[in-house]
């Protein structure tokens, strides 16, 4: 089975990031492979190691995002495609999925995998949008994948429990990071990645976003809290009294 995993380069949320004048100010160097996409790659690698086939990756991003493709190749992906957009391009999930769909049309992958959401947008939309554009059956929020002949068996996390769904291929799946722990590339993989093919395609027309960010804002701080001192019994008595006062118990 051949997989194509759609991957995104995202800011590292553990790096210092500030809002200034409605814009996010961050260190352009502190970027990572979206954690959910890393899990999608890991699962695709495990399945192809077991059942045969290859894993390709597809990324939309500015020039510098190529390093994220190299990371995926170092993990074990076979080849990468980089749809290059200008640094300042404003892409919402609709625009991203439109570009991905345009590229993937007719490519013949058995499974297209995406992250369940991008760590920066937290939108969780591009996956199912892409499936709909390509007319593929899909499942979201996968926490486990298995291959049975031409069928992808997806265990997904739902509201009240997990559902096991069989999807005929070709299909699309969006992946949770609860699925696995992505491998850390070894030196050998990093060296091998340098020789793997990466096709770059300049995107001459970026689709207009239907959702635009007007500005970023800091999150309003919660009221400062207080530490309840004392022995456990005293702490308990004090907190329970406060909770009764607030009529929440």
């Amino acid at each position: 089975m051949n997989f194509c995993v759609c991957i995104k380069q995202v800011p590292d949320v553990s790096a210092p990031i500030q809002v200034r004048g409605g814009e996010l100010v961050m260190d352009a160097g502190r970027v990572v492979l979206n954690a959910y996409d890393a899990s999608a790659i890991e699962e695709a690698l495990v399945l192809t190691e077991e059942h045969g086939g290859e894993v390709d990756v597809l990324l939309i991003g500015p020039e510098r995002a190529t390093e994220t493709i190299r990371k995926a190749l170092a993990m074990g992906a076979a080849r990468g495609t980089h749809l290059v957009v200008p640094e300042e391009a404003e892409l919402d999930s609709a625009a991203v999925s439109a570009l991905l769909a345009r590229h993937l049309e007719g490519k013949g992958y058995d499974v297209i995998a995406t992250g369940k959401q991008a760590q920066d947008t937290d939108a969780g939309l591009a996956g199912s949008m892409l499936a709909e554009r390509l007319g593929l059956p899909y499942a979201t929020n996968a926490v486990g994948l298995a291959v049975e002949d031409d069928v992808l068996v997806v265990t997904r996390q739902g509201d009240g429990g997990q559902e096991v769904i069989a999807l005929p291929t070709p299909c699309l799946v969006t992946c949770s990071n609860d699925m696995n722990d992505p491998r850390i590339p070894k030196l050998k993989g990093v060296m091998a990645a340098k020789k793997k093919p990466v096709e770059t395609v300049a995107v001459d027309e970026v689709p207009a976003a239907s959702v635009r960010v007007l500005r970023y804002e800091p999150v309003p701080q919660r009221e400062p809290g207080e530490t309840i001192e004392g022995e456990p019994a005293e702490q308990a008595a004090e907190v329970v009294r406060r909770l009764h006062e607030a009529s929440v118990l």
Partner: protein
Amino acid sequence: MPTILSFVALSNGQLTRASLEVLTRCRALAAEQGADLAAVVLAPNAGAAGAAAEAAQRYGAQTVYTVADPAFEHALNAPVLQALEAVIEKAQPSLVAFPSTEGVKDVLGALAVRTGGAVVADVAEFEMKDGGVEALRPVMAAKFLARTRAEAAAGTPVLVSVRSGSYVAEESPVAGTVEAVALESRRPQQTLREVVAGVAGGVDLADARVVVAAGRGVKDDAARRLVEELAEVTGAAIGASRAVVETGMFPATAQIGQTGKVVSPEVYFAVGVSGAIQHVAGMSNSRIIVAVNNNADAPIFDVATYGLVGDLYEVLPALIAEIKNSSA
């Protein structure tokens, strides 16, 4: 007259609190915009659909579209998409609002493509302005808010999903109409093999008034029993951090945070949770946060209303005893 359509979700035969919050918000927007308020409910049978429609009318839905079909017994996305597409086609809404559940996340993007509309997911606030929808949504594990503007092509809706706890549900009954919409049968592409249910009969996490959440500090059965007992005496739903779900002590369905669920109870007990931003992303909207942690420097104390520095094996028994006493 323009229409605003509110999707209401059922859980154990009842409309969820988050659905009613969204419906209440849509009622205010409809009044402000001079629009009709409609609701849509998908239910496994006509009885459940009827009961849900009545409940939606109590919250002001003038028209309730019901789609009753056994397909909705289970959470496969194809029939849900098909039904929502049909209802949107009928109602011609300018705005469709949803509670942000896993079930909704499963279809939202695809539905936007299918209807040709625009979509904004997981908002904390939204309003209709100058022919578009402006919303405030947490981004980057809720580290920042993005103020966004969505504009849909003429004749297509803006779809919005709303985080639970963003609005307060209030009744305002109307005598409205109920319109049943049939689901055309189609050959299913996906098939459901199995449902691995979460905690049966437990309190629904997203709707819970009290949540007791366990973190990796909850290391053994004795600690887990304390968490369960605290949940019992407070009538709470049990939540969990990702780290403790990984140990297998709590089901993944209980996970709260960026990957897991977003909850907004009146009281959130964080027990042995360090307070990583990815966890806080799912609970910072709780009204009161009580944190129990033996490390005074744990970041959870930065968001806690009441911080109890101490060993959970000592603090939890004291809390449980005190709550039992005080309500006896």
